[in-house]
Structures are given as C-alpha cells and as structure tokens.
C-alpha cells in the first residue's frame, strides 16, 4: 500500500491546516494485532494491519493510553 511516509503525506494533503505530515509509531502487543490480522485477505506479509470495529479496534482503543508511542515528522520527498 505504499510507504508510511507516502501514506502520511497523502493524508496530510487533505488537512492542510493541521501542521503537516507525521507518522505515529505505536508498539501494539501481538495479541491485539492478531485480532486485526486476516490471513486470507490481510496477511501480515503484506505489511498492513487494518484495525476496525470488527477487527481489533475496540481492544486497541482500550489499551491505547498505556502503549508506547513515537511521533516521527515526515518531510517533503
């Protein structure tokens, strides 16, 4: 699905008044990731974990305050 930097720039382009693009790196426990992984459609080998209400998002939301996070600014290409 492209690089995280490309994805961040694409999202930031829609919200031009929010300070530019950045990556929020979060250390998500494996057991929560497992709830979002669908081996048929979204295998980990494709590098994407799509959380949603039906796929680990409630659990991610509950654990969110305690998860280690890092904000990584993304510059122009």
């Amino acid at each position, binding site marked *: *699905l*492209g690089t995280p930097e490309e994805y961040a720039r*694409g999202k930031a382009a*829609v919200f031009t008044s929010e300070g530019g693009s950045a990556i929020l790196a979060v250390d998500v426990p494996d057991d929560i990731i497992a709830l979002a992984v*669908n081996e*048929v459609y*979204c295998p980990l080998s494709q590098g*994407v974990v799509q959380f*949603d209400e*039906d796929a680990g998002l409630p659990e991610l939301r509950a654990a969110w305050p305690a998860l280690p996070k890092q904000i990584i600014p993304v510059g122009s290409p």
Partner: protein
Amino acid sequence: VNTTSQVSDALRHVLTQPTRGVVGLVDDLLTVCRHHRLQLDWQPDRCRARSDGGEWTELADVALPKSVFRAVLARVAVLCNERTPNAVSPYGGRGELPAGANPREVIKVTFVNNPTEQKLELTTETEPTARMSRQHEQAGRVAIDGD
C-alpha cells in the same frame, strides 16, 4: 459472449477466494473488469455489476469485513496514484487505471474510504482518441522532467 452467471461467478471467486491477500484481490478484480468490460458498484452491504451497459446483477454473499474492504480501497488508492501522482487521497477521489494493452481503454475509479463511508465504483471505458493524445503528450513531459 459474457453471460451474467459467468460474470457473477468470476467476481464471486475473486472476492471470496483471494490467493494473494488484498493486493491479489484488487489485481484480479481489475482483470475481471477488463475482460468483461464491467461496471462495478461495491459498498459494504451491496455489490452489483453489469457488463457493457446491461442489466445490473446483485452479488449475494460476498460481503467482506469492513476492515478488509477498507484495505481493498487503500490498495485501489495506491494504484491510482501510481498511474497519476496525487490523483486521489487515501480518503477518496477519482482516478483512472489502465484496462489492458489498448491504451484507449481505461478503468475509471471513484471511491470513498473513511470510517463512516466506504464505496468503490469501477467503470471500464474507451477514451476518445483526442484526449488520449493529450495524456500521452503530458506523460512524455513528465518523463523528460523526471530525467
């Protein structure tokens, strides 16, 4: 001649039995669209298609989890931007994808991908020659600038 059941079977196979995750699903979906000159209207709770302007056919039992559908839409966005940089945002837009060896044939893409709405529309079309000439000219300029 494409029968309705051939189109339905092909689409159902692509959507329910992907072999390479969402990447393969999208590749195969575009291939089916090209082969059958399909118009596809896909939303979380409904997927319908028609071939060459014929009658719409509803595909039952092909609903994907929302997270999977969103990943499919994200892949479509990447492909649109590979063909035309910044053509669409991750949240939606309109773009075009090649529809095979004939450069005049394109798949027009319209999609929305945000937490509250998801949809994908694909339409296989043949572009007028004049418009294609302008696009090729523009593509040539980009390539030269890129060098």
